C-alpha cells in the first residue's frame, strides 16, 4: 500500500511570500533514477518524449531515445522556451479553401524537466490563445501534450523569478512534477491527465521517505537563496513596485538610452516564454496555398506598419517601450499579471546587452 505523505510546509517560502499559484498540497511518491528511464521508455509508447540535454553550459530539449548521463531533469531552465511545443515557430493553420480541419499529428508530446518559469508562461499564452475566439491548434496541443515539470536544483546568474513571485519549483500548471533528491525524484501529480499517466505506470513508484521530503525542502531553500542573491546583486525590483512605472516613464530618456545598442534582431521576443505575437503568412505549396502561423516580433520595424507606410512606432526605442508596455502595463491591466517570468532568457540572448533587470530598475527608480 502506498501511503500519501504531504509536505507540511509545502514549499520553503510560504512564510515570506505567497507563491504565484498558492499552496496546493499534493500526495508525493518516489521514483528511482533507474525507474525514471523505464518510465520514459514507457511514455514513448503514447508520446514523443522530450528531455533537457546538457550541451556545454546549456540545456536544450531533445527527443528522448535512450538513457544518457547528459539528460538533466533538474538544474535550471532549458535555453529555448516551452512555447515552441505549443505554438511552433511556423505551423500550418489552414489549407486555403479546404474547410476540413488539418490532420492531427501522430503523437502528442511529453515534455520533461520543464521549469516553473516556463509554467508561468502558460498563464500568458493561455490568456491569449484560449480566451475569446480560440486557437484550435494551441488548444489541441494544451489538451494532448503532457508536462512533466521539475524543481530547479540551481540558479544561474540571469535567474530572477522570485521578483515576479515565481518560485523556482513548480506549484501548478503541470501534469506531473519531479523534485530531484538522492537516488531519484519526489513525484507529485498535478492534473487528471497526470494521474492517468501515473496510474498506468504505478508499479514504478514507491513510498516517499521523510528524509527525501526534508532533502527537497532544504534544496528548495538553497535555490531560493541563490535567486535571492542574484536579485540583490543586480538590484532587481520586486513586481510589487512595478505599478505605474511605464506610465510614469513614458516620455523618459530611458527608452532611447536603452535602445541605443539594439540591433533589432528580435532575439528577446523569440526566446521569451510569454511573447506570443505572430503573423499569418500565406505560401504556395504544390498546387495549394497554405497559411502558416509564424512567430513575429514587436521589435521589428514593420510589425505595426500599415499599408501606405504609416507606422505608430517608427523608432526602435518606441518599439522597446512598447515591448515593456505590453509586458508590464497591458497584461497587468487585462489579465492581472506581468508578462515576465523572470527566466532571464532575454538577458542572455540579447547581443546588445539590453538587460531587462536594469530596465526594470531604472523604471522603478525613475533613473
Amino acid at each position, binding site marked *: 500500500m502506498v501511503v500519501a505523505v504531504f509536505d507540511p510546509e509545502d514549499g520553503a517560502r510560504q512564510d515570506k511570500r505567497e507563491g504565484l499559484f498558492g499552496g496546493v498540497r499534493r500526495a508525493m511518491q518516489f521514483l528511482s533514477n533507474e525507474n525514471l528511464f523505464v518510465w520514459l521508455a514507457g511514455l514513448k509508447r503514447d508520446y514523443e518524449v522530450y528531455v533537457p540535454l546538457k550541451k556545454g553550459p546549456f540545456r536544450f530539449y531533445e527527443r528522448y531515445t535512450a538513457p544518457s548521463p547528459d539528460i538533466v531533469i533538474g538544474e535550471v531552465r532549458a535555453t529555448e522556451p516551452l512555447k515552441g511545443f505549443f505554438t511552433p515557430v511556423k505551423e500550418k493553420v*489552414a489549407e486555403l479553401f479546404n474547410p476540413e*480541419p488539418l490532420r492531427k499529428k501522430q503523437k502528442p508530446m511529453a515534455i520533461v524537466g520543464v521549469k516553473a518559469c516556463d509554467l508561468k508562461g502558460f498563464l500568458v499564452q493561455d490568456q491569449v490563445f484560449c480566451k475569446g475566439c480560440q486557437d484550435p491548434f494551441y488548444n489541441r496541443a494544451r489538451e494532448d501534450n503532457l508536462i512533466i515539470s521539475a524543481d530547479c536544483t540551481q540558479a544561474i546568474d540571469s535567474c530572477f523569478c522570485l521578483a515576479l513571485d515565481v518560485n523556482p519549483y513548480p506549484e501548478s500548471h503541470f501534469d506531473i512534477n519531479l523534485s530531484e533528491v538522492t537516488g531519484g525524484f519526489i513525484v507529485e501529480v498535478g492534473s487528471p491527465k497526470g494521474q492517468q499517466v501515473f496510474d498506468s505506470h504505478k508499479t514504478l513508484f514507491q513510498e516517499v521517505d521523510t528524509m527525501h521530503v526534508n532533502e527537497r525542502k532544504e534544496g528548495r531553500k538553497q535555490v531560493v537563496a541563490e535567486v535571492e542573491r542574484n536579485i540583490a546583486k543586480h538590484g532587481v525590483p520586486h513586481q510589487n513596485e512595478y505599478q505605474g512605472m511605464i506610465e510614469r516613464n513614458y516620455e523618459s530618456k530611458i527608452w532611447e538610452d536603452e535602445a541605443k545598442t539594439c540591433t533589432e534582431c528580435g532575439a528577446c521576443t523569440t526566446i521569451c516564454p510569454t511573447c506570443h505575437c*505572430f503573423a*499569418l503568412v*500565406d505560401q504556395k505549396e504544390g498546387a495549394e496555398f497554405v497559411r502558416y502561423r509564424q512567430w513575429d516580433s514587436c521589435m521589428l520595424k514593420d510589425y505595426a506598419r500599415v499599408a501606405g507606410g504609416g507606422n505608430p512606432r517608427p523608432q526602435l526605442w518606441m518599439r522597446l517601450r512598447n515591448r515593456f508596455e505590453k509586458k508590464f502595463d497591458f497584461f497587468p491591466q487585462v489579465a492581472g499579471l506581468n508578462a515576465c517570468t523572470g527566466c532571464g532568457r532575454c538577458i542572455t540572448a540579447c547581443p546588445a546587452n539590453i538587460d531587462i533587470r536594469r530596465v526594470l530598475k531604472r523604471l522603478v527608480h525613475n533613473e
Partner: protein
Amino acid sequence: MNNGHNPYSPIKTEVIDMIVETPMIKTLKLKPQEPIAFAAGQFVELTIPGVGEAPFTPSSRPSVNDMLYLTIMKVGAVTEAVHRLEKGDTVGLRGPLGKGYPIDLFKDKEILVVGGGCGFAPLRSLMYTLFERSGEFKKLLFRGGCKSAKELLYKHELEQWGEKPDLDIRLTVDVGDASWKGHVGVVTDILDPIGMDCQNGIAIVCGPAMMMKFATAKLSEMGFQDPNIYLSMERNMSCAIGKCGHCRIGLYYACHDGPVLSYDKIKGFRDVWA
C-alpha cells in the same frame, strides 16, 4: 465562439464584378460560398491566394449577406493584387470580424457622420443601415471630404442622398476644379456651424488618420462628448481575432475590441493617430 471552426481558414469566394470608382479605388462585388452576416462597421479579411490577406470593412448593405462589396484603394502588396483581379476569380473571406457601430445606442439622437476619402466605404454601409432605420433617429447629417472631385467615391449615390429629405449632406474637396461646384477646403471647415445639439449628439468619423485626428479635435471643441465620438481605427492586423498582437492600441485590440472605438476609450493612449 468559433464553434469548432478553424478561425484562420477563409471561405471560398467568387469575384462577381470589379467596379472602377476612381483611378486608385475599385469596388469588388463578392459572393462567398457561405453567407457572411455582418453589422455596419464590422470587417472581413480578404485573401488573395498566394499573396496574402488584408482587412476591409464592407461598403455594402449589411442586410444583404450573400453578396458583399469591398471598396479598396491601391496602397500595398495585397491591394495591388486586388486591383488586378477579374470577374470569376477566386478569393477568400474571413468574417465578420470585430465590433461594429452600436446603433441601438443612437436611438432618438442626432447623428453626424464625417467621412474622408476612402473612409466613405465603411460609412456607406453604415448609412444604408441608418436609412433603413431612419425613423429611430432625431436627425441625420453627413459631412464628407476628399482630395478632388475626381477622387470622390460613389458620386451617383451621393447625388441620390442629396435628395433625401431626412438627410442633411454637405461635401468638400481639398482642391477644386471646373467640375466641382461645391465647397473647397478640408472637411473640418464644413463641420461648424452644424445646427445640431452637439452636447447630446453622436459623431461618427472614418477616414485617413490625420483627418480623424483633426476632425476629433474639432468635434470636441464643438461640444461632442468623448464617449459619443466613434472612430474607425486603422492598424496593421494579421489574425483579426485578438491573438497576434499587431493591432494593439493601449488596452485594446483594434480587430477584436474595434475597429470602431469610442474616443473616450482610446483618448489616453499615445500612439493613437499614427
